[in-house]
Protein backbone atom coordinates (compact mmCIF):
# COMPACT_ATOMS: atom_id res chain seq x y z
CA UNK A 1 0.00 0.00 0.00
CA UNK A 2 2.85 2.40 0.79
CA UNK A 3 4.57 2.05 -2.56
CA UNK A 4 1.51 2.94 -4.63
CA UNK A 5 1.42 6.70 -3.99
CA UNK A 6 5.20 6.85 -4.37
CA UNK A 7 5.01 5.12 -7.72
CA UNK A 8 2.22 7.38 -8.86
CA UNK A 9 4.16 10.45 -7.94
CA UNK A 10 7.37 9.17 -9.42
CA UNK A 11 5.49 8.84 -12.73
CA UNK A 12 4.00 12.29 -12.36
CA UNK A 13 7.36 13.84 -11.45
CA UNK A 14 8.96 12.27 -14.50
CA UNK A 15 6.19 13.62 -16.70
CA UNK A 16 6.56 17.18 -15.32
CA UNK A 17 10.32 17.05 -15.66
CA UNK A 18 10.22 15.79 -19.25
CA UNK A 19 7.54 18.30 -20.29
CA UNK A 20 9.50 21.17 -18.80
CA UNK A 21 12.63 20.03 -20.64
CA UNK A 22 10.72 19.85 -23.92
CA UNK A 23 9.42 23.38 -23.33
CA UNK A 24 12.89 24.65 -22.55
CA UNK A 25 14.37 22.99 -25.66
CA UNK A 26 11.52 24.27 -27.82
CA UNK A 27 12.00 27.85 -26.71
CA UNK A 28 15.77 27.96 -26.93
CA UNK A 29 16.53 26.32 -30.27
CA UNK A 30 19.90 27.96 -30.88
CA UNK A 31 21.68 27.80 -27.58
CA UNK A 32 20.63 26.99 -24.07
CA UNK A 33 20.08 29.96 -21.76
CA UNK A 34 22.84 30.74 -19.28
CA UNK A 35 20.50 29.76 -16.47
CA UNK A 36 17.77 27.54 -17.89
CA UNK A 37 14.50 27.35 -15.96
CA UNK A 38 14.81 24.73 -13.26
CA UNK A 39 11.49 22.90 -12.98
CA UNK A 40 12.55 21.05 -9.84
CA UNK A 41 12.43 24.33 -7.92
CA UNK A 42 8.70 24.46 -8.61
CA UNK A 43 7.54 20.89 -8.55
CA UNK A 44 9.42 19.81 -5.44
CA UNK A 45 7.10 21.54 -2.90
CA UNK A 46 4.06 20.47 -4.93
CA UNK A 47 5.34 16.91 -5.03
CA UNK A 48 5.95 16.85 -1.29
CA UNK A 49 2.50 18.26 -0.64
CA UNK A 50 1.00 15.72 -3.02
CA UNK A 51 2.79 12.85 -1.34
CA UNK A 52 1.48 13.95 2.01
CA UNK A 53 -2.03 14.26 0.61
CA UNK A 54 -1.86 10.78 -0.88
CA UNK A 55 -0.37 9.33 2.27
CA UNK A 56 -3.26 10.82 4.26
CA UNK A 57 -5.73 9.60 1.67
CA UNK A 58 -4.56 6.05 2.03
CA UNK A 59 -4.07 6.18 5.77
CA UNK A 60 -7.55 7.50 6.61
CA UNK A 61 -10.09 4.86 7.41
CA UNK A 62 -12.83 5.57 6.81
CA UNK A 63 -12.30 8.17 4.05
CA UNK A 64 -13.93 11.57 4.68
CA UNK A 65 -14.87 14.41 2.24
CA UNK A 66 -11.85 16.24 3.61
CA UNK A 67 -9.82 14.21 1.12
CA UNK A 68 -11.51 16.08 -1.71
CA UNK A 69 -10.40 19.40 -0.25
CA UNK A 70 -6.87 18.08 -0.05
CA UNK A 71 -7.10 16.91 -3.64
CA UNK A 72 -8.34 20.36 -4.69
CA UNK A 73 -5.44 21.94 -2.83
CA UNK A 74 -3.04 19.64 -4.62
CA UNK A 75 -4.52 20.55 -8.02
CA UNK A 76 -4.25 24.27 -7.16
CA UNK A 77 -0.60 23.84 -6.33
CA UNK A 78 -0.02 21.79 -9.48
CA UNK A 79 -1.56 24.57 -11.61
CA UNK A 80 0.45 27.19 -9.72
CA UNK A 81 3.65 25.24 -10.30
CA UNK A 82 2.92 25.06 -14.04
CA UNK A 83 2.03 28.73 -14.03
CA UNK A 84 5.43 29.53 -12.56
CA UNK A 85 7.26 27.30 -15.04
CA UNK A 86 5.41 28.87 -17.97
CA UNK A 87 5.84 32.36 -16.52
CA UNK A 88 9.57 31.86 -16.17
CA UNK A 89 9.84 30.48 -19.70
CA UNK A 90 7.77 33.28 -21.20
CA UNK A 91 9.79 35.83 -19.29
CA UNK A 92 12.95 34.97 -21.25
CA UNK A 93 14.50 36.94 -24.10
CA UNK A 94 14.30 33.79 -26.27
CA UNK A 95 10.56 33.57 -25.87
CA UNK A 96 10.11 37.29 -26.59
CA UNK A 97 12.28 36.95 -29.69
CA UNK A 98 10.41 33.85 -30.89
CA UNK A 99 7.05 35.51 -30.30
CA UNK A 100 8.17 38.68 -32.10
CA UNK A 101 9.37 36.65 -35.08
CA UNK A 102 6.14 34.63 -35.25
CA UNK A 103 4.06 37.78 -35.05
CA UNK A 104 6.12 39.45 -37.75
CA UNK A 105 5.61 36.45 -40.02
CA UNK A 106 1.90 36.55 -39.30
CA UNK A 107 1.74 40.25 -40.18
CA UNK A 108 3.82 39.73 -43.33
CA UNK A 109 1.33 37.08 -44.49
CA UNK A 110 -1.74 38.98 -43.34
CA UNK A 111 -0.84 42.37 -44.84
CA UNK A 112 -1.14 41.52 -48.57
CA UNK A 113 -4.12 39.22 -47.97
CA UNK A 114 -5.98 41.91 -46.09
CA UNK A 115 -5.21 44.49 -48.76
CA UNK A 116 -6.40 42.20 -51.55
CA UNK A 117 -9.59 41.31 -49.66
CA UNK A 118 -10.31 44.98 -48.96
CA UNK A 119 -9.78 45.92 -52.61
CA UNK A 120 -12.06 43.14 -53.82
CA UNK A 121 -14.79 43.98 -51.31
CA UNK A 122 -14.54 47.64 -52.22
CA UNK A 123 -14.87 46.86 -55.93
CA UNK A 124 -17.83 44.57 -55.31
CA UNK A 125 -19.62 47.16 -53.17
CA UNK A 126 -18.89 49.85 -55.75
CA UNK A 127 -20.39 47.68 -58.47
CA UNK A 128 -23.52 47.28 -56.35
CA UNK A 129 -23.67 51.01 -55.71
CA UNK A 130 -23.10 50.55 -51.98
CA UNK A 131 -20.68 52.54 -49.79
CA UNK A 132 -17.49 50.72 -48.85
CA UNK A 133 -16.15 50.27 -45.32
CA UNK A 134 -13.51 52.94 -45.86
CA UNK A 135 -16.18 55.40 -47.09
CA UNK A 136 -18.37 54.75 -44.05
CA UNK A 137 -15.31 55.10 -41.80
CA UNK A 138 -14.43 58.39 -43.53
CA UNK A 139 -17.92 59.77 -42.84
CA UNK A 140 -17.74 58.66 -39.21
CA UNK A 141 -14.31 60.29 -38.93
CA UNK A 142 -15.73 63.54 -40.29
CA UNK A 143 -18.47 63.46 -37.67
CA UNK A 144 -15.84 62.88 -34.95
CA UNK A 145 -13.81 65.82 -36.26
CA UNK A 146 -16.92 68.00 -36.43
CA UNK A 147 -17.75 67.15 -32.85
CA UNK A 148 -14.19 67.99 -31.85
CA UNK A 149 -14.46 71.39 -33.56
CA UNK A 150 -17.72 72.08 -31.75
CA UNK A 151 -16.04 71.14 -28.47
CA UNK A 152 -13.20 73.57 -29.15
CA UNK A 153 -15.73 76.29 -29.96
CA UNK A 154 -17.59 75.54 -26.74
CA UNK A 155 -14.31 75.72 -24.79
CA UNK A 156 -13.61 79.16 -26.25
CA UNK A 157 -17.10 80.42 -25.45
CA UNK A 158 -16.70 79.10 -21.88
CA UNK A 159 -13.35 80.90 -21.58
CA UNK A 160 -14.90 84.17 -22.80
CA UNK A 161 -17.84 83.78 -20.39
CA UNK A 162 -15.45 83.19 -17.52
CA UNK A 163 -13.50 86.32 -18.47
CA UNK A 164 -16.76 88.27 -18.11
CA UNK A 165 -17.39 86.66 -14.75
CA UNK A 166 -20.20 84.37 -15.89
CA UNK A 167 -20.21 80.65 -15.18
CA UNK A 168 -20.74 78.56 -18.32
CA UNK A 169 -23.83 76.30 -18.32
Amino acid at each position, binding site marked *: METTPNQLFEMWRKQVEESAQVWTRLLSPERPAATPPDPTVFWRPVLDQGLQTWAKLFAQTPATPDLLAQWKQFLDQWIEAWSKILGQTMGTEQF*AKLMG*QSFDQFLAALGPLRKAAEQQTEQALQALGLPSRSQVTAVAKQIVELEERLERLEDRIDAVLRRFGKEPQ
Partner: protein
Amino acid sequence: MGAETIREWQEELDKNVRRLRNLQTLVTRPVEPRVGQTPREEIYKTNKSRLYRYASSRRYRTPVLFVPNLGISRPYIFDLLPGASFIEHMTREGFDFYLLDWGVFGPEDNDLTVEHCVTKILPRMAQKVLQSSDARELSVLGYCMGAPMSASFIATHPEVPVKNYIDLAGPVDFSKVGVFGLWLKKEYFNVDRVVDTLGSIPADLVKAGFKLVKPTMDLSMSLNLWWNLWNDNYVEGFQALNRWANEYVAFPGEFFRQWVRDFYQENKLYRGELVMGGRPVRLENITCPVYVVGAKEDYIAPPACVRALIDLVGSRDKEYVELPGGHISLIAGRGAARHCWPKVSGWLARH
Protein backbone atom coordinates in the same frame (compact mmCIF):
# COMPACT_ATOMS: atom_id res chain seq x y z
CA MET B 1 -17.90 4.43 9.51
CA GLY B 2 -18.98 6.84 12.27
CA ALA B 3 -22.10 9.01 12.30
CA GLU B 4 -19.99 12.11 11.83
CA THR B 5 -18.37 10.73 8.66
CA ILE B 6 -21.75 9.74 7.25
CA ARG B 7 -23.04 13.29 7.91
CA GLU B 8 -20.02 14.79 6.15
CA TRP B 9 -20.54 12.59 3.10
CA GLN B 10 -24.22 13.53 3.04
CA GLU B 11 -23.24 17.19 3.01
CA GLU B 12 -20.81 16.51 0.19
CA LEU B 13 -23.54 14.72 -1.72
CA ASP B 14 -25.87 17.70 -1.22
CA LYS B 15 -23.16 19.99 -2.53
CA ASN B 16 -22.77 17.83 -5.60
CA VAL B 17 -26.50 17.92 -6.27
CA ARG B 18 -26.37 21.73 -6.04
CA ARG B 19 -23.28 21.75 -8.27
CA LEU B 20 -25.11 19.79 -10.95
CA ARG B 21 -28.20 21.99 -10.64
CA ASN B 22 -26.15 25.18 -11.03
CA LEU B 23 -24.15 23.67 -13.88
CA GLN B 24 -27.38 22.85 -15.69
CA THR B 25 -28.59 26.43 -15.17
CA LEU B 26 -25.27 27.84 -16.41
CA VAL B 27 -25.39 25.73 -19.56
CA THR B 28 -29.07 25.73 -20.44
CA ARG B 29 -30.31 29.04 -19.01
CA PRO B 30 -27.35 31.41 -18.73
CA VAL B 31 -28.40 34.78 -17.32
CA GLU B 32 -26.79 38.08 -18.20
CA PRO B 33 -25.42 39.33 -14.88
CA ARG B 34 -26.61 42.81 -13.88
CA VAL B 35 -23.40 44.76 -13.54
CA GLY B 36 -22.92 48.46 -12.78
CA GLN B 37 -25.95 48.91 -10.54
CA THR B 38 -24.85 51.96 -8.54
CA PRO B 39 -27.15 54.83 -9.60
CA ARG B 40 -25.40 57.27 -11.92
CA GLU B 41 -26.04 60.09 -14.30
CA GLU B 42 -24.25 60.87 -17.54
CA ILE B 43 -23.09 64.43 -17.28
CA TYR B 44 -20.92 64.77 -20.36
CA LYS B 45 -19.99 62.92 -23.50
CA THR B 46 -17.46 63.49 -26.21
CA ASN B 47 -17.16 61.07 -29.10
CA LYS B 48 -17.19 57.61 -27.45
CA SER B 49 -16.17 58.79 -23.98
CA ARG B 50 -18.63 59.44 -21.19
CA LEU B 51 -18.39 61.10 -17.81
CA TYR B 52 -20.67 59.62 -15.15
CA ARG B 53 -21.52 61.04 -11.77
CA TYR B 54 -22.57 58.59 -9.07
CA ALA B 55 -25.18 59.41 -6.45
CA SER B 56 -23.71 60.02 -2.99
CA SER B 57 -24.32 61.94 0.21
CA ARG B 58 -21.40 64.26 -0.71
CA ARG B 59 -19.95 64.20 2.76
CA TYR B 60 -16.73 65.36 1.19
CA ARG B 61 -16.99 68.42 -1.04
CA THR B 62 -13.97 67.68 -3.27
CA PRO B 63 -15.10 65.57 -6.23
CA VAL B 64 -13.07 62.55 -7.31
CA LEU B 65 -12.39 61.97 -11.00
CA PHE B 66 -11.61 58.32 -11.64
CA VAL B 67 -9.51 57.71 -14.78
CA PRO B 68 -9.23 54.02 -15.66
CA ASN B 69 -7.48 52.34 -18.60
CA LEU B 70 -8.39 53.10 -22.20
CA GLY B 71 -8.96 49.96 -24.25
CA ILE B 72 -8.33 46.42 -22.90
CA SER B 73 -11.48 46.10 -20.76
CA ARG B 74 -14.71 47.79 -19.75
CA PRO B 75 -14.85 49.89 -16.56
CA TYR B 76 -17.86 48.11 -15.01
CA ILE B 77 -15.34 45.98 -13.10
CA PHE B 78 -15.23 48.92 -10.66
CA ASP B 79 -18.97 48.59 -10.10
CA LEU B 80 -19.38 44.88 -10.65
CA LEU B 81 -22.12 43.86 -8.22
CA PRO B 82 -23.78 45.41 -5.17
CA GLY B 83 -21.53 44.65 -2.21
CA ALA B 84 -18.56 44.03 -4.51
CA SER B 85 -18.12 47.46 -6.02
CA PHE B 86 -15.34 50.02 -5.55
CA ILE B 87 -17.64 52.78 -6.77
CA GLU B 88 -20.38 51.75 -4.35
CA HIS B 89 -17.81 51.86 -1.54
CA MET B 90 -16.63 55.35 -2.49
CA THR B 91 -20.14 56.76 -2.80
CA ARG B 92 -21.20 55.13 0.46
CA GLU B 93 -18.24 56.81 2.13
CA GLY B 94 -19.63 60.12 0.85
CA PHE B 95 -17.34 60.97 -2.08
CA ASP B 96 -18.74 62.85 -5.03
CA PHE B 97 -17.49 60.26 -7.50
CA TYR B 98 -17.05 60.66 -11.26
CA LEU B 99 -16.04 57.89 -13.64
CA LEU B 100 -14.49 58.56 -17.01
CA ASP B 101 -15.57 55.75 -19.32
CA TRP B 102 -13.29 56.05 -22.34
CA GLY B 103 -15.70 53.94 -24.37
CA VAL B 104 -15.27 51.45 -27.15
CA PHE B 105 -13.49 52.96 -30.13
CA GLY B 106 -14.07 52.08 -33.77
CA PRO B 107 -11.94 52.37 -36.93
CA GLU B 108 -12.99 56.03 -37.26
CA ASP B 109 -11.03 56.72 -34.06
CA ASN B 110 -7.76 55.25 -35.25
CA ASP B 111 -6.16 58.71 -35.28
CA LEU B 112 -6.83 59.24 -31.58
CA THR B 113 -3.54 59.54 -29.68
CA VAL B 114 -2.47 59.42 -26.04
CA GLU B 115 -1.60 63.09 -26.47
CA HIS B 116 -5.18 63.95 -27.50
CA CYS B 117 -6.53 62.11 -24.46
CA VAL B 118 -4.11 63.91 -22.14
CA THR B 119 -4.32 67.41 -23.57
CA LYS B 120 -7.91 67.56 -24.83
CA ILE B 121 -10.18 64.97 -23.24
CA LEU B 122 -8.84 64.92 -19.67
CA PRO B 123 -8.81 68.74 -19.18
CA ARG B 124 -12.39 68.88 -20.47
CA MET B 125 -13.47 66.07 -18.18
CA ALA B 126 -11.84 67.80 -15.19
CA GLN B 127 -13.61 71.03 -16.12
CA LYS B 128 -16.97 69.24 -16.37
CA VAL B 129 -16.40 67.61 -12.97
CA LEU B 130 -15.73 71.01 -11.37
CA GLN B 131 -18.77 72.54 -13.03
CA SER B 132 -21.07 69.66 -12.16
CA SER B 133 -20.01 69.44 -8.52
CA ASP B 134 -19.71 73.20 -8.11
CA ALA B 135 -16.32 72.68 -6.49
CA ARG B 136 -13.11 74.65 -6.72
CA GLU B 137 -10.77 71.65 -6.64
CA LEU B 138 -10.89 68.00 -7.58
CA SER B 139 -9.02 64.82 -6.72
CA VAL B 140 -7.80 62.61 -9.54
CA LEU B 141 -7.57 58.85 -9.19
CA GLY B 142 -5.80 57.00 -11.99
CA TYR B 143 -5.88 53.24 -12.37
CA CYS B 144 -3.59 51.14 -14.58
CA MET B 145 -2.71 53.10 -17.75
CA GLY B 146 -5.15 55.75 -16.57
CA ALA B 147 -2.56 56.63 -13.91
CA PRO B 148 0.37 57.64 -16.17
CA MET B 149 -2.12 59.39 -18.45
CA SER B 150 -3.65 61.39 -15.63
CA ALA B 151 -0.18 62.09 -14.17
CA SER B 152 0.84 63.50 -17.58
CA PHE B 153 -2.33 65.59 -17.59
CA ILE B 154 -1.73 67.02 -14.09
CA ALA B 155 1.94 67.71 -14.86
CA THR B 156 1.12 69.64 -18.03
CA HIS B 157 -1.96 71.50 -16.76
CA PRO B 158 -0.98 73.46 -13.65
CA GLU B 159 -4.04 75.67 -14.22
CA VAL B 160 -6.37 72.76 -13.36
CA PRO B 161 -6.89 72.80 -9.57
CA VAL B 162 -5.99 69.23 -8.61
CA LYS B 163 -6.11 68.81 -4.85
CA ASN B 164 -4.94 65.18 -4.60
CA TYR B 165 -3.64 62.55 -6.93
CA ILE B 166 -3.82 58.78 -6.47
CA ASP B 167 -2.01 56.25 -8.64
CA LEU B 168 -3.53 52.78 -8.36
CA ALA B 169 -1.33 50.15 -10.02
CA GLY B 170 -0.28 52.61 -12.70
CA PRO B 171 3.12 52.00 -14.28
CA VAL B 172 5.53 54.92 -14.41
CA ASP B 173 9.01 53.43 -14.84
CA PHE B 174 8.44 51.20 -17.86
CA SER B 175 11.91 49.65 -17.62
CA LYS B 176 10.53 47.66 -14.68
CA VAL B 177 7.18 46.80 -16.19
CA GLY B 178 7.64 43.02 -16.33
CA VAL B 179 6.72 40.57 -19.03
CA PHE B 180 4.77 43.00 -21.26
CA GLY B 181 7.82 45.28 -21.24
CA LEU B 182 9.93 42.39 -22.47
CA TRP B 183 7.50 41.31 -25.19
CA LEU B 184 7.07 44.88 -26.40
CA LYS B 185 10.79 45.62 -26.58
CA LYS B 186 11.84 47.47 -29.75
CA GLU B 187 14.02 44.55 -30.86
CA TYR B 188 11.13 42.10 -30.80
CA PHE B 189 8.00 44.14 -31.39
CA ASN B 190 7.71 46.41 -34.39
CA VAL B 191 4.82 48.62 -33.34
CA ASP B 192 4.83 50.59 -36.61
CA ARG B 193 4.42 47.42 -38.62
CA VAL B 194 1.60 46.22 -36.35
CA VAL B 195 -0.37 49.47 -36.53
CA ASP B 196 0.28 50.01 -40.24
CA THR B 197 -0.95 46.49 -41.02
CA LEU B 198 -3.88 46.19 -38.64
CA GLY B 199 -5.07 49.80 -38.36
CA SER B 200 -6.35 49.28 -34.85
CA ILE B 201 -5.43 46.61 -32.31
CA PRO B 202 -8.40 44.26 -32.37
CA ALA B 203 -9.99 43.08 -29.14
CA ASP B 204 -9.07 39.46 -29.96
CA LEU B 205 -5.39 40.37 -30.14
CA VAL B 206 -5.60 42.21 -26.82
CA LYS B 207 -7.30 39.13 -25.37
CA ALA B 208 -4.60 36.81 -26.74
CA GLY B 209 -1.88 38.96 -25.16
CA PHE B 210 -3.51 38.95 -21.75
CA LYS B 211 -4.36 35.24 -21.85
CA LEU B 212 -0.75 34.49 -22.74
CA VAL B 213 0.57 36.38 -19.74
CA LYS B 214 -1.25 33.95 -17.44
CA PRO B 215 -1.98 30.81 -19.50
CA THR B 216 -3.20 28.77 -16.54
CA MET B 217 -5.78 31.39 -15.54
CA ASP B 218 -8.72 29.74 -17.35
CA LEU B 219 -7.82 26.34 -15.94
CA SER B 220 -7.68 27.53 -12.34
CA MET B 221 -10.85 29.59 -12.87
CA SER B 222 -12.70 26.50 -14.14
CA LEU B 223 -11.41 24.41 -11.25
CA ASN B 224 -12.50 27.03 -8.72
CA LEU B 225 -15.87 27.29 -10.43
CA TRP B 226 -16.44 23.55 -10.12
CA TRP B 227 -15.33 23.59 -6.51
CA ASN B 228 -17.68 26.45 -5.59
CA LEU B 229 -20.47 25.63 -8.01
CA TRP B 230 -22.76 24.63 -5.14
CA ASN B 231 -22.62 28.22 -3.80
CA ASP B 232 -25.19 30.47 -5.53
CA ASN B 233 -23.45 33.69 -4.46
CA TYR B 234 -20.16 32.48 -5.91
CA VAL B 235 -21.86 31.55 -9.17
CA GLU B 236 -23.44 35.01 -9.40
CA GLY B 237 -20.05 36.66 -8.83
CA PHE B 238 -18.39 34.29 -11.27
CA GLN B 239 -20.88 35.10 -14.03
CA ALA B 240 -20.31 38.83 -13.63
CA LEU B 241 -16.54 38.51 -13.47
CA ASN B 242 -16.44 36.04 -16.34
CA ARG B 243 -18.48 38.40 -18.49
CA TRP B 244 -16.00 41.19 -17.78
CA ALA B 245 -12.94 38.95 -18.20
CA ASN B 246 -14.03 37.98 -21.70
CA GLU B 247 -15.15 41.40 -22.90
CA TYR B 248 -11.97 42.86 -24.32
CA VAL B 249 -11.77 46.27 -25.95
CA ALA B 250 -9.69 47.25 -28.99
CA PHE B 251 -7.04 49.97 -29.02
CA PRO B 252 -7.20 52.80 -31.57
CA GLY B 253 -4.15 52.39 -33.83
CA GLU B 254 -2.34 55.69 -33.20
CA PHE B 255 -3.05 55.50 -29.50
CA PHE B 256 -1.41 52.08 -29.35
CA ARG B 257 1.56 53.27 -31.41
CA GLN B 258 2.25 56.19 -29.07
CA TRP B 259 1.53 54.19 -25.94
CA VAL B 260 3.95 51.38 -26.86
CA ARG B 261 6.66 53.58 -28.39
CA ASP B 262 6.75 56.49 -25.92
CA PHE B 263 5.89 54.64 -22.73
CA TYR B 264 6.97 51.00 -23.08
CA GLN B 265 9.85 51.20 -25.55
CA GLU B 266 11.38 54.60 -24.82
CA ASN B 267 10.22 55.11 -21.22
CA LYS B 268 9.80 58.81 -21.97
CA LEU B 269 7.52 59.61 -19.04
CA TYR B 270 10.02 58.35 -16.48
CA ARG B 271 12.97 59.92 -18.28
CA GLY B 272 11.23 63.29 -18.53
CA GLU B 273 11.37 63.29 -22.33
CA LEU B 274 7.66 63.18 -23.03
CA VAL B 275 6.12 66.21 -24.72
CA MET B 276 2.35 66.63 -24.93
CA GLY B 277 0.52 69.50 -26.55
CA GLY B 278 3.85 71.28 -26.90
CA ARG B 279 4.46 71.10 -23.14
CA PRO B 280 7.15 68.89 -21.61
CA VAL B 281 5.70 66.36 -19.18
CA ARG B 282 7.71 66.86 -16.01
CA LEU B 283 6.38 64.79 -13.15
CA GLU B 284 8.12 67.08 -10.65
CA ASN B 285 5.44 69.62 -11.60
CA ILE B 286 2.98 67.51 -9.62
CA THR B 287 3.05 69.13 -6.22
CA CYS B 288 -0.29 68.15 -4.71
CA PRO B 289 -0.47 65.31 -2.14
CA VAL B 290 0.19 62.01 -3.88
CA TYR B 291 -0.79 58.49 -2.86
CA VAL B 292 0.67 55.57 -4.80
CA VAL B 293 -0.67 52.05 -4.43
CA GLY B 294 1.13 49.01 -5.80
CA ALA B 295 -0.06 45.40 -5.75
CA LYS B 296 2.33 42.75 -4.48
CA GLU B 297 1.43 40.09 -7.07
CA ASP B 298 0.87 42.42 -10.00
CA TYR B 299 2.53 41.01 -13.12
CA ILE B 300 1.09 43.69 -15.45
CA ALA B 301 2.34 46.69 -13.45
CA PRO B 302 4.79 45.26 -10.90
CA PRO B 303 5.22 47.30 -7.70
CA ALA B 304 8.68 48.62 -8.70
CA CYS B 305 7.39 50.36 -11.83
CA VAL B 306 4.46 51.88 -9.90
CA ARG B 307 6.52 52.97 -6.93
CA ALA B 308 8.83 54.98 -9.22
CA LEU B 309 6.31 57.85 -9.24
CA ILE B 310 7.08 58.66 -5.60
CA ASP B 311 10.65 59.65 -6.43
CA LEU B 312 9.63 61.80 -9.40
CA VAL B 313 6.82 64.00 -8.13
CA GLY B 314 7.54 67.35 -6.55
CA SER B 315 5.01 66.82 -3.74
CA ARG B 316 6.06 67.06 -0.13
CA ASP B 317 3.09 65.01 1.03
CA LYS B 318 3.53 61.67 -0.71
CA GLU B 319 3.03 58.08 0.35
CA TYR B 320 3.51 54.66 -1.16
CA VAL B 321 1.75 51.50 0.00
CA GLU B 322 2.02 47.99 -1.31
CA LEU B 323 -1.09 45.89 -0.82
CA PRO B 324 -1.86 42.22 -1.32
CA GLY B 325 -3.37 41.22 -4.65
CA GLY B 326 -2.79 41.34 -8.36
CA HIS B 327 -3.53 43.99 -10.97
CA ILE B 328 -7.29 43.39 -10.89
CA SER B 329 -7.75 41.96 -7.42
CA LEU B 330 -6.12 45.12 -6.03
CA ILE B 331 -9.28 47.05 -6.86
CA ALA B 332 -11.98 44.43 -7.48
CA GLY B 333 -13.13 41.56 -5.30
CA ARG B 334 -13.22 40.57 -1.65
CA GLY B 335 -9.52 41.23 -1.03
CA ALA B 336 -9.85 44.74 -2.44
CA ALA B 337 -12.78 45.50 -0.15
CA ARG B 338 -10.62 44.50 2.80
CA HIS B 339 -7.25 45.95 1.83
CA CYS B 340 -7.46 48.61 -0.87
CA TRP B 341 -10.78 50.47 -0.79
CA PRO B 342 -10.60 51.55 2.87
CA LYS B 343 -7.00 52.73 2.34
CA VAL B 344 -7.94 54.85 -0.68
CA SER B 345 -11.09 56.34 0.86
CA GLY B 346 -9.27 56.84 4.19
CA TRP B 347 -6.38 58.69 2.57
CA LEU B 348 -8.76 60.89 0.57
CA ALA B 349 -10.83 61.61 3.66
CA ARG B 350 -7.69 62.76 5.49
CA HIS B 351 -6.71 65.03 2.62
